[in-house]
């Protein structure tokens, strides 16, 4: 079936899901001569990374995706990627916009509050108990309560004292280096990817790019050469576990043997699929935030002060408005632009059940303080919804989440990878490298025929490889 000459003689590894993570896993396994089979429930590959282009010439992705020149090079598709020349974020505070990170540093009140909080933290050995505490200690109560926590709460839909402190993921690059990178980006007209990959270091030589054909082209690239092992419209109904080890699955009512299972299914769904152990039961409680993305097509360009505007004030329904054409002019026809209005919700709640027209109306109202003549500029809109946009790190299940991070699923030869499978705020390049590293260990294990497999490894330090 999926075996090729040179392949090892064991049943194929089953990969559940044909998005970036699933395809990366399948490629890595195949490169090591491990037979593999991909089961994708949809009628086509691409998962979350699909792209669209409408008849009017507006392009958009399902959510925002960040691709770097380093990832493009890894996939041999640098020649079809365009450089993103600029990327910037601002926060609206009162009637003013403050740039990230420099403008935010320029508030003496916030700075003093942060300094005092940091000084106090020196004498406080206890670990913060919630995201609210962690942010107040790190950035001072003034900045935390006025800016950071309202954004975190709008984004997650939960009060910050109910969130785990791990929500705060510090800037991996540090403030001085971040400012340096911003300066290099301005000079070279390249949007340096700062903090968009945790697996590989930030570097002045790594910037955002965008592939022709959208981020879906990335999946098409990953899928090259795997055509013969992809099964579309293949619903995985069960993952069979015997004696603590994944041994096969049921797909569209048919049982299939597998030497391992690599799942990209959302982690809270996985326990329902697994049969033969209840070790994953805790993951059922994990929650994802649902999100609507309303793409407003408007006349004009450069309507926002920067690419992304964060809105911590509670009188906005949205917490973030993005004008991607400032970074990537080709996403809309000349003289036109798209503002994407993101609203967090729960799948099935009142907002989620609104029809598209009502969401567009509400979004236009929301944007009006930023673009007063938005209705005069309005050309049309498109609403996208996803029930699974961001993982919510609740304190209630933080211990189980840590166990997933440190020990994996707990089932031998069952890997849970990808943004939803790892239950982590991962961007494209992290998904790629994390999946690679974990699947390679699986391949080593399978080829060695050993037992006692764990897909986790100590993180390698790559700190000084760049610059």
């Amino acid at each position, binding site marked *: 079936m999926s075996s*090729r000459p*040179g*392949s090892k003689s064991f049943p194929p590894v089953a990969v559940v899901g044909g998005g970036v993570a699933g395809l990366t896993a399948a*490629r*890595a396994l*195949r*490169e*090591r*001569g491990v037979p593999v089979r991909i089961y994708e429930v949809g009628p086509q590959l691409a998962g979350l990374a699909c792209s669209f282009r409408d008849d009017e010439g507006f392009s958009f992705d399902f959510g925002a995706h960040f691709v770097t*020149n*380093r990832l*493009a*090079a*890894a*996939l*041999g*598709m*640098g*020649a*079809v*990627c365009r450089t993103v020349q600029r990327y910037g974020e601002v926060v609206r505070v009162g009637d003013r916009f403050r740039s990230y990170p420099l403008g935010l540093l320029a508030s003496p009140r916030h700075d003093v509050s942060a300094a005092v909080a940091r000084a106090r933290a020196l004498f406080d050995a206890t670990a913060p108990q919630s995201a609210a505490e962690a942010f107040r200690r790190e950035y001072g109560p003034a900045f935390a309560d006025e800016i950071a926590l309202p954004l975190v709460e709008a984004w997650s839909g939960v009060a910050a004292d109910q969130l785990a402190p791990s929500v705060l993921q510090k800037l991996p690059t540090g403030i001085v280096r971040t400012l340096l990178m911003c300066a290099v980006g301005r*000079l*070279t007209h390249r949007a340096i990817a700062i903090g968009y990959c945790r697996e*590989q270091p930030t*570097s*002045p*030589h*790594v910037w955002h790019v965008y592939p*022709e054909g959208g981020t879906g082209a990335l999946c098409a*690239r990953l899928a*090259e*050469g795997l055509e013969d092992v992809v099964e579309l419209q293949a619903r995985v109904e069960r993952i069979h576990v015997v004696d603590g080890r994944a041994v096969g699955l049921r797909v569209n009512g048919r049982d299939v043997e597998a030497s391992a299972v690599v799942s990209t299914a959302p982690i809270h769904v996985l326990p329902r699929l697994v049969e033969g152990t209840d070790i994953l039961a805790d993951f059922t409680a994990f929650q994802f935030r649902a999100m609507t993305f309303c793409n407003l097509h408007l006349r004009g360009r450069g309507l926002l002060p920067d690419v992304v505007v964060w809105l911590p004030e509670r009188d906005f329904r949205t917490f973030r408005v993005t004008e991607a054409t400032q970074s990537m002019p080709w996403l809309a026809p000349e003289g036109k632009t798209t503002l994407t209005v993101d609203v967090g919700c729960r799948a099935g709640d009142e907002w989620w059940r609104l029809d598209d027209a009502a969401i567009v109306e509400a979004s236009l109202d929301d944007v009006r303080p930023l673009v007063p003549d938005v209705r005069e500029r309005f050309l049309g809109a498109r609403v996208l919804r996803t029930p699974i946009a961001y993982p919510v790190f609740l304190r209630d299940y933080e211990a189980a989440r840590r166990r997933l991070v440190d020990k994996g699923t707990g089932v031998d030869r069952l890997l849970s990878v990808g943004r939803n499978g790892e239950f982590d705020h991962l961007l494209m390049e992290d998904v790629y490298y994390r999946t690679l590293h974990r699947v*390679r260990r699986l391949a080593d294990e399978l080829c060695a025929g050993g037992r006692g497999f764990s897909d986790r490894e100590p993180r*390698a330090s*790559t700190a000084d*490889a*760049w*610059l």
Partner: protein
Amino acid sequence: MQTLRWAPAGDGLEMEKVVCCLCGIDDADPVAVGEDFEYHTSPEVFRAVRCRRCSLVYLDPRPAASEVSRIYPADYHAYDFSAESFGLVHAVRRRLEARRMLSWCEGLGPEARILDVGCGDGFHLGILREFGRPGWRLEGIDPDPRAVEAGQRRGLTVHQGTIQTVQLPPSSFDLALLIMTIEHVDDPIGVLDGIFAALRPGGRCVIVTDNVESPDFRVFGGRHWGGYHFPRHFTLFGKQTLRAAAARAGFEVASLRTIVSPVNWVYSIRNLLVDVHAPEWMVERFSLRAPGALAAFTLLDMANARVGRGAVLNAILRRPATVTEAP
């Protein structure tokens, strides 16, 4: 292990996924992303990685064999490093190289057979013909017909092909030269195996290649380092990885040191300038035709080489006198 290929994307190149040639496995972290700053042969973007197990640096993915004629354009410098084109630099380099090469040839008999693998336009064989002993039998190998033609124009014996494909009498050469070549080839261990077989027991192989443990790599290694020569240098060594490669082919290491070269310094700066679209006159100050920059960086690299961190590695390997087959 299976090689997966990618068809060219847009005007890009056909690319193939590779593994570490020492470990036989793909377990590497990216160290650099760059483009063909020197010849602009394609709009492709390239990635150099470092093996997490052995530290070998290599291009992954890399252009497939089908792209060789595209990535080595007609004006590629190795095909025509002539006195006419390079003037003073040519004359000085020739003198310096002659001294170096004769030291490698110490102890060779009056009728020694010498093979230059990847001989380009025959620059090094020409030096041996001029400054070496008259009875030495000199031969070269290069896969590119343009290089073979250039060598033959100089009256040299040059075989077209690779050490793996050209039928050479086994155990017949006294000295093999692998000068700025091992980093270009798609199978460095295969080349070393081929040289091992061609050398008589006790014969020597001299390797010169870019050094990834040098200060110029530390400064420019994220993108602009001249030694990447994107996308023509497939494998890049440090002392440890070169030693490991030699051992894999069955060689003994007689000496391994670094030597002075300004070229990677000069080309690193040139690549940086090209990348930021600096004016042409500024870019031209940094090239093989720029004696000023070459002289300045020669002085700098002399200091580096003194502490064992010169820009270029120089290994002298020996085929053991008693062992006849590579392991």
